[in-house]
């Protein structure tokens, strides 16, 4: 197990390096000069050159990359062009809010998705299976930003039960666990949970259905094992794959929350990202993407290791 963990950790390094290259290049595929947003319109050529030198933009690309990477290791993601504040701090505040949303959505989505998928796979071709399959296909097909709007229309506009946007009552800063704040979390978390419910239910249904048709299940029944004990075997068999789907969805939740945050004005990384895009604040864009991608890489790593811990077949391959 230890050797596997080490090997898996080593495999992450090139991927993390590649991710940082892509994030670095993002700024450079952008048309125009990253400094046009803050440069005075009538800046002279010398002033422009001085500004470029100050931001290090006059050096060759690979050198810029190494400097950028070096700063990265010291936790420095550069400064926002729009506000001048360090990107790292802005991203950290926003990511906390996004994580709160993503974790809440996971807590809703995964138990429901697993349960629905399992029931549908166990009772194949029953009315329950048909119902779950329909829910799942609707879940994977629905544009969640639209679903968010529809939920706002129903629960905020028509019924006025829940607030339409924001992460807390007006004027409150930061998150506290009281009803006033939780009210704001309900609609975005449910919206965000719908797609993973669909995907997890679909995958688990197919998985459980397949496993029940395997020879070993027949063998277990043949030797007189009770239904319940066979079920335990099936679940153990499905666990590793189900876990990997959940891991992928965790990351997707963090990414998917970008659009949902826009719908609900949730002050998370998605909002930060769309602000960065509209103000053409490329360092902020770069930093946010980098942090989110690294979260995704870490989530996958953790899932892989957990998978190996519960399924000995993975370690051996």
């Amino acid at each position, binding site marked *: 197990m230890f050797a596997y963990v080490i090997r898996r950790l080593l495999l992450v390094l090139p991927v993390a390096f590649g991710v940082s290259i892509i994030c670095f290049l993002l700024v450079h595929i952008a*048309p125009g000069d990253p400094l046009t947003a803050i440069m005075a319109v009538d800046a002279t050529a010398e002033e422009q050159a001085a500004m470029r030198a100050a931001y290090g933009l006059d050096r060759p690309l690979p050198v810029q990359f190494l400097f950028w990477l070096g700063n990265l290791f010291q936790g420095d993601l550069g400064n926002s062009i729009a506000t001048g504040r360090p990107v790292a701090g802005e991203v950290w505040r926003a990511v906390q809010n996004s994580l709160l949303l993503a974790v809440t959505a996971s807590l809703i989505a995964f138990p429901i998705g697993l349960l629905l998928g399992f029931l549908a796979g166990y009772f194949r071709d029953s009315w329950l299976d048909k119902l779950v399959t329909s829910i799942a296909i609707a879940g994977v*097909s629905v*544009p969640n930003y639209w679903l968010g709007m529809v939920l706002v229309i129903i629960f905020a506009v*028509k019924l006025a039960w829940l607030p339409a946007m924001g992460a807390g009552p007006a004027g409150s800063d930061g998150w506290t666990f009281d009803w006033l704040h939780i009210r704001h979390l309900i609609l975005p978390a449910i919206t965000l949970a719908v797609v993973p419910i669909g995907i997890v239910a679909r995958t688990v249904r197919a998985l459980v259905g397949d496993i029940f048709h395997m020879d070993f299940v027949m063998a277990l029944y043949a030797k007189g094992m009770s239904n319940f004990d066979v079920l335990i075997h099936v679940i153990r068999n499905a666990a590793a794959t189900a876990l990997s789907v959940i891991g992928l969805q965790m990351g997707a939740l963090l990414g998917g929350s970008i659009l949902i945050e826009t719908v609900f004005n949730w002050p998370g990384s998605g909002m930060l990202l769309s602000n*960065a895009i509209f103000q053409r604040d*490329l360092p902020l*864009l770069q930093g946010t993407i980098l942090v989110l991608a690294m979260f995704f890489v870490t989530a996958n790593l953790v899932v892989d290791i957990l998978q190996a811990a519960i399924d000995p077949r993975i370690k051996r391959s």
Partner: protein
Amino acid sequence: MAVAEIELARTPKRRGYWAGVLHRVSGDPVAMVCFVVLMALILSAIFASWLPLQDPYKASMIARLKPIGTEGHLLGTDEQGRDMLARLIYGGRLTLLIGLMPVVVAFFIGSALGIVAGYAGGRTNTIIMRTVDVFFAFPSVLLAIAISGALGAGIVNSLVSLSIVFIPPITRVAESVTSGVRSADYIEAARASGGNALTVMRVHVIGNVLGPIFVYASSLTSVCMILAAGLSFLGVGVKPPEPEWGLMLNTLRSAIYMNPWVAALPGLMIFITSLCLNLLSDGLRSAMNVKD
């Protein structure tokens, strides 16, 4: 003579593989309904200017945000008084184009990369697949928004960023299907009888791997649609005043208190289209999985 005729009549009609797939899909009522709905959407989008519709760009200050069922505006009007029915039908043009094209582009590029990687193996495989792995470190929504955000809004930029998003998954599937086929006996036989790499790939590999890759790619179309409209919804896709479902959803967002159901219409179109794409792809998959 007569005997031969009877024999002929008795022999069941023999179909090729794809004809069989087509036959099974056309017997699947769900898939067929979805196919008809999609064709209706695509055709009405293409021939929108021949349909008796109002001008989708013509704004009117006095006819803003009319509800569904208004005289002269069957589906109401948007926040600038433009006819919703016309905008929804015209909107299909860009949404469907940006929603489907990237998958087609990614299908060609991804298949090519994956087949080469899977067939060549060794270092070529390592280089291609490790590069692909890096792109997998980004959730697809994030990657699309990152590239579009950096490139800026615009139809071409959306097409480019979404194509980049879908190349890695297709490459990965193409690679795994191809490496499976590569070790098959008939490939061995073809190589042993003197076929060079290109011939073997063209004749024996491509025919056997394109089917599964195609089915996988078809399952990506609905995600691509939702993402494409999502980019416009965020403001990094199609620019106003162009009618496009995601963008319409965005501009109508301010109208949810005034006229909520009109505001929800463009999203309903995205939902219906992506539902049909998913169900059709599912039908195609089960039609191709039948082994007989």
